[in-house]
């Protein structure tokens, strides 16, 4: 075989990789651009100059920025924008990893019962005032986080009893989801008016609770877990061909599965504990990416996270400005914006755009 042809293949591969890298960078740029734009959007009308001034004033001795602008941008909008980005990243990354590790396109934090678990924990805190680690300001958050992880542990435990079949794991997740929903319904039924309202709000999900103190902890945590999961990209690629092939490629399938599922459960639980249930993003972001750049997890994981961030940020900005000063719960808007776009991609099968 001539060297020319070998190098040709190399060039084709390099070009394909470059396109995927470029796509990732474009997504990153879009998220940043929308974030900057979003600081100027809201009930109080502030221009670009005022918003930037407010941010800069934190770091530099800039002259004359109104305290009003500073409060609005720094205390209200910025934490919320960052919360939208990291929540989107977490759900997108967790969705991509869970689908990959279980080889199933229908899997998401929602289908595996994690969201219902979190909701159940939150509802227990709201209605009964019972927390796993006592009571206090963060009782709902801690309960939601703990119940979400507990669900993952139970679902995995059940599947282990039956020899870790993927189908058992998914079905156990769906079943646990129903069980938790029943508990939530019961709690709703017995709860008073105020509590009922709070549960309903929690179930719809939203970013209105974003505070600097939470965001500052979540950012490093989310980035750290995302990087950790990306280290398993090659293993996830190999596992998509089935357990036997993966195992013959030197991968300890059970070990990779439990590590990836645990990490993505922690990732999901730590954001939904604060935001409530935000469906759809974990399921759909990975699919949008696969349609656009294929399934190589080295690119799929970061892109899925960035798509999640982009969709959630756009939706959240829309829902806090469309009928301001009130807002629409973000879960409703994500579905309104995301579903038509996803169906369009699905029907038009545009994944060859990228080839």
């Amino acid at each position, binding site marked *: 075989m001539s060297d020319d*042809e070998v190098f040709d293949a190399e060039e084709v591969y390099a070009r394909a990789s470059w396109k995927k890298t470029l796509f990732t960078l474009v997504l990153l740029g879009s998220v940043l651009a929308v974030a900057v734009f979003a600081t100027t959007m809201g009930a109080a009308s502030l221009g670009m100059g005022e918003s930037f001034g407010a941010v800069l004033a934190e770091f530099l001795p800039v002259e004359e920025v109104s305290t009003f602008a500073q409060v609005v941008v720094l205390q209200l909008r910025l934490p919320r924008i960052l919360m939208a980005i990291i929540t989107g990243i977490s759900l997108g990354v967790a969705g991509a990893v869970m689908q990959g590790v279980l080889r199933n396109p229908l899997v998401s934090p929602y289908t595996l019962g994690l969201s219902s678990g979190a909701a159940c924990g939150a509802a227990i805190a709201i209605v009964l005032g019972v927390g796993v680690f006592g009571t206090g300001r963060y009782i709902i958050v801690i309960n939601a986080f703990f119940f979400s992880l507990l669900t993952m542990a139970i679902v995995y435990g059940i599947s282990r009893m039956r020899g870790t079949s993927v189908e058992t794991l998914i079905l156990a997740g769906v079943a646990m989801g129903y069980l938790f929903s029943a508990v939530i319904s019961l709690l709703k039924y017995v709860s008073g008016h105020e509590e009922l309202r709070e549960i309903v709000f929690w179930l719809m999900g939203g970013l209105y609770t974003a505070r600097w103190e939470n965001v500052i902890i979540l950012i490093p945590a989310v980035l750290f877990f995302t990087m950790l999961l990306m280290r398993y990209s090659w293993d996830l690629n190999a596992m998509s061909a089935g357990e036997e092939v993966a195992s013959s490629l030197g991968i300890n399938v059970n070990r990779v599965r439990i590590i990836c599922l645990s990490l993505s459960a922690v990732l999901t639980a730590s954001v939904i504990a604060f935001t409530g249930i935000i469906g759809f993003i974990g399921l759909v972001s990975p699919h949008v990416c696969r349609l656009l750049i294929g*399934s190589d997890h080295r690119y799929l994981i970061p892109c899925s996270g960035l798509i999640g961030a982009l969709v959630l940020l756009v939706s959240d900005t829309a829902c806090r400005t469309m009928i301001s000063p009130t807002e629409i719960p973000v879960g409703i808007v994500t579905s309104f914006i995301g579903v038509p776009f996803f169906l369009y991609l699905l029907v038009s099968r545009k*994944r060859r755009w990228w080839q």
Partner: protein
Amino acid sequence: MKLKVKDLSFSYGSANTLEDITMELDKGEIVSLVGPNGAGKSTLIKCIDRILKPQKGTVFVDGKEAARLSSKDFSKMMGYVPQSTLEVFPYTVFDIVLMGRRPHIGWRVTSNDVKVVARTLRFMGIEEFASRYFDELSGGEKQKIAMARALAQEPKVLLLDEPTSNLDIKHQLEVMNIVKKLVQERKISAVMAMHDLNLASRFSDNMVMLKDKGVFTVGDPESVLTPANIENVYGVRAEVRNGHMGRPYVMPIEPL
């Protein structure tokens, strides 16, 4: 590379699936595992490749105990081609074959990895599919890609689980010719679980006939494929004729 299986037993629960299997494979040799459904052909292949963990017995690779090698080192020696491959998510053919480099690469794909993949695709005659998506291809093409992935591992022994059972006659011959060419040119060995006795007869140096979880007989196709053996193992009355290149050709007549 010499492969030796000694006293291997495996069970999926209570009933034994394989009992005291002993067999050997020399470098540059093609060995077929034949036997009726449920005789344990696929299970034996999976036990050799450490996909399944045998309860008893040892696999030796060049005198070394396979179970003691790290999974990475072991996967550089053995390539596995499943009976059929189902990719749930869209991957290009190039990406799938590149997965075979998994035992060799860290995070970054080196230019050597890309060259090995390109060379393998070329060797298999499927380089024009490189940037196509796997799910758009036919069964025969998919089988070749699964083989290419195993070859990209650069293994010393290739294990194939019924490589021809889902293919039309042209692809059956193409796939078998590739195995033969590989064994001759790269001096690797191949173990194949086979249903088609005539393909096995024509392409193997030796055959291992399994019956009731154990080895019934071992030898070259002439000595294994006799009417008496086929009657005994498969419960089928058959005539054995002189086929292509003097290899035995089995003509099944009726079940007994």
